[in-house]
């Protein structure tokens, strides 16, 4: 029977027209989904999603992830061994923006909030959250006449309940972080690990948050600082970056991440709030802290 099945399999393959897309050759010949056998990458190929139309990501987000790739892997795609981060997976989500912000309030300098909705369905159950940041990327490096101080206020909201259940007071908690914009940044990261940790761990995949900035009024005296703020690129909705440790057998586990396999992920401390470091410095900081931890 095995031999016969093998022949029918070969015959079935031969029937596929020669110029069929390669992933169609991976289609289950018996119609039964066997994707559990393959690592996630081949699961995509196996299901033929390789060719399915897909939403195109934001160009700034793609540029940032290409830089991250260059920092983490060689040209041939081999993960660099000198890396300090504990994760073997990084996912970047662009938001569905719910409310457009209104122009900045001239009196208090507050840039009115924007509501963000993120759908994290792509995060699998075996991916444990190590760190999460909101990422503001600038088209070109932004320079301010002087350091600009802002208060960043983020409110996490319960995903809107369906019309059946009685409306409840929005379950939200506020997260304040103060940070300074210095010269020449291509991106700014706001660490939101403590907010997302419980949600991702409890398989919540729809994240609803509202964000607003209040920049110190005295900074606005200087007319050019005012100009600097009015076109502050923070008005661009941020992306959500998740640093994850994939604990499945097919994922690569460097010696760093083995410490974290199966343990409650130890997110870095939140006191620093904003980490507006270029990738390199943060990576170096990661080495120091991991050495300290060890």
């Amino acid at each position, binding site marked *: 029977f095995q031999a016969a099945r093998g022949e029918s399999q070969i015959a079935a393959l031969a029937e596929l027209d020669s110029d069929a*897309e*390669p*992933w169609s050759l991976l289609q289950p010949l018996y119609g039964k989904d066997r994707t559990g056998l393959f*690592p*996630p*990458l081949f699961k*995509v*190929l196996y299901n033929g*999603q*390789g*060719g*399915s139309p*897909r*939403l*195109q*990501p934001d160009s700034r*987000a*793609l540029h940032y*992830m*290409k830089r*991250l*790739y260059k920092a*983490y*892997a060689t*040209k*041939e*795609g*081999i*993960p660099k061994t000198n890396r300090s981060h504990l994760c*073997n*997976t*990084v*996912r*970047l*989500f*662009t938001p569905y923006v719910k409310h457009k912000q209104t122009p900045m309030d001239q009196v208090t300098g507050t840039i009115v909030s924007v509501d963000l909705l993120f*759908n994290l*369905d*792509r995060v699998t159950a075996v991916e444990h959250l190590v760190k999460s940041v909101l990422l503001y990327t600038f088209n070109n490096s932004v320079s301010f006449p002087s350091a600009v101080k802002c208060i960043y206020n983020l409110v996490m909201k319960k995903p809107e309940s369906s019309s059946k259940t009685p409306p409840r007071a929005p379950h939200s908690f506020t997260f304040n972080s103060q940070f300074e914009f210095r010269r020449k940044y291509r991106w700014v990261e706001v660490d939101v690990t403590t907010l997302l940790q419980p949600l991702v761990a409890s398989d919540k995949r729809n994240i609803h948050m509202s964000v607003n900035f209040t920049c110190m009024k005295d900074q606005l005296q200087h007319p050019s600082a005012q100009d600097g703020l009015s076109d502050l690129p923070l008005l661009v909705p941020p992306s959500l970056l998740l640093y994850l440790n*994939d604990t499945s*057998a*097919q*994922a*690569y*586990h*460097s010696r760093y991440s083995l410490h974290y396999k199966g343990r409650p992920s130890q997110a870095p401390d939140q006191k620093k709030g904003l980490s507006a470091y270029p990738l390199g410095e943060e990576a170096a900081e990661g080495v120091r802290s991991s050495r300290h931890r060890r």
Partner: protein
Amino acid sequence: SQKAVNRELKKPLVPASFNLSEYFKQFLFPQNECELHDFRLSFSQLKWDNWIVAPHRYNPRYCKGDCPRAVGHRYGSPVHTMVQNIIYEKKLDSAVPRPSCVPAKYSPLSVLTIEPDGSIAYKEYEDMIATKCTCR
């Protein structure tokens, strides 16, 4: 007669086309021994470049070649492999094949992909590039 002896002496010992070094080589280094070969693949060839952003080139490499007798020291093969080789060579059972040349070690691969929902994922997968061959 003298003439016949002279004629015989003039005959070359080995055919003119015979190459001595080639002849000995087959004993020193068996032809196409089991070893690692490159296979450079670009995802655009597979039309996957619309969702695999990086790397641009992927060389999974593969193992190919004959397993020589002395597989032990050269490939770190277990004694079982030599037993299988003897059975094969002595044709004790035609169903028993010659030991195969297969990968023994791998290295991981990092990929950057665009997911169907438009999000971007950086993932590191284990065992994606063969780095060493063995006979089993």
